[in-house]
């Protein structure tokens, strides 16, 4: 859906569902995932429909992912860090997580 314009600067590595992706320092988690071609961030707890970022500014909550074990974080507001472990969320979050 997206490509990077020009110089992409220094990069770092994070994982999404165990798979490594490269990100640019200054990316938010959502931007890094979109740039890596990830088009599905979660499925809804109501119908299980696929969702991906809609607003990129912290108001729609469709980009919710699990970051380093903490669920339902807004991927569009969290800057990437080296080694970050991202998990996409499937339907209802499992109890106890």
């Amino acid at each position: 859906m997206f490509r990077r314009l020009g110089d992409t600067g220094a990069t770092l590595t994070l994982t999404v569902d165990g798979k490594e992706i490269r990100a640019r320092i200054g990316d938010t988690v959502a931007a890094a995932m979109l740039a890596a071609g990830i088009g599905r961030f979660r499925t809804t707890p109501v119908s299980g429909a696929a969702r991906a970022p809609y607003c990129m500014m912290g108001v729609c909550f469709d980009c919710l992912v699990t970051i380093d074990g903490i669920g339902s974080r807004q991927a569009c507001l969290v800057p990437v860090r080296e080694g970050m472990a991202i998990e996409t969320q499937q339907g209802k979050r499992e109890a106890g997580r």
Partner: protein
Amino acid sequence: MTEAADLASSYDLVVIGGGPAGLAAAALAARAGVSTVLFDENPGVGGQIYRGITSTPITNRGVLGEDYWAGAALAAEAKASGALIVTGATVWSLDPSLQVGVAIAGRARLVQAKRVIVATGSLERPFPIPGWTLPGVMTAGAAQTALKAQGLVPKGHTVVAGAGPLLWLLAAQLLRGGAKIEAILDTAPRLNWLRAVAHLPDFALSAYWSKGLALLREVKAKAPVIRIANLEALGDDQVREVAFDGRRLPADLLLLHQGVVPNVNLAMAAGIEHRWNARQLCFEPVLDEDFGSSVPGIAVAGDGAGIAGGTAAAERGRIAAIAAMRALRPEAAVADTQAIRQKLQREEMGRAFLDWLYRPADALRQPVGETLACRCEEVTAQQVRDMARIGCEGPNQMKAFLRCGMGPCQGRLCGLTITELIAAERDSTPAEVGYYRLRPPVKPITLAELASLPIAEAERKAVER
């Protein structure tokens, strides 16, 4: 990086939001010696209009345009002013005693303010069409954010649809960035001209007249523009096509926009009185000439005070800051606001024309059938209409019946739709129907964050058994 533990327990002025209004307000107040903290939940300041202004990877200034780069001076001014600027800081509550709840890097604090300026800006109006929740359907603002902050440009089949100045600006920026736009689907009803034309003389005198015309010419030279009346996003787990007026186009990315509206959640949760603006079709706070709200000590500046654009937002922030300085330091000499008010008036001159010209069509604000009104709880327009028809009178009762507005976005993406649907079904008005009752926390915080709030010995003893 400022952490929660680094914050003082109180500040003279707390500014919430680091867009043009917040930056201008904080800079002015801090320079006058008022102890000022500015909180913004994003990784950097700038708000949406100057998103990524201190960090954007885009070096070709022409892509985003000079109006964007004007934000650099505002950001630098705020930084040099002595105000404490805390990014990554989520304000989750504000109450009439001027206590501000903020979470930073997993820890929460309550900060006492003597004055508060809410500068939480605007968000894009809901655009409830069939398929608007599909991955690959985003707002125009989302694509603009990705471009400004991360230098991301759409690839594949990209369709832009809607109405409003931002739509054309985004299209121009994407084209300059090398994106190919399959089509721009213009949803502004042709008859809008009838009401807009009376305000044309004012608009012609504003700075936006020549800028706007140049922008339209630039975009129309590079992308086909199709006037449409209805719109649908099609696909299974990702948008594949857009359908309109019996036609179809392939689409990997559909960017929607039909204007911006004040982001009211924090201001409403603080108890600030709001009213319906029938021209801009949204709720806005009731404010005095210094942008002071119905809650003593809290001002609302910027687009959160009613949509007027980024340059006006900075002027509004300055007026609110001067009012705060007068209240905090009655003995000190404070700048007169007359020159600022004149600038503000010039900025606001063309607004009525734009509001009428780009007024979104009723059918694109008041969906029917299976179209989702509430994205989070997946409540359809039909459900809301049926419930209103059998007697549900307002948004809060609607919440109890259907759960609309009770998901993670806390009504930000459905509030106006629900209000308008109830008004339409009950032959009432949005002003009478009202809006969701909003309460803190206005952003989700974890129990761990709440538990990290410092507790005084007396408070601990009060609940000990």
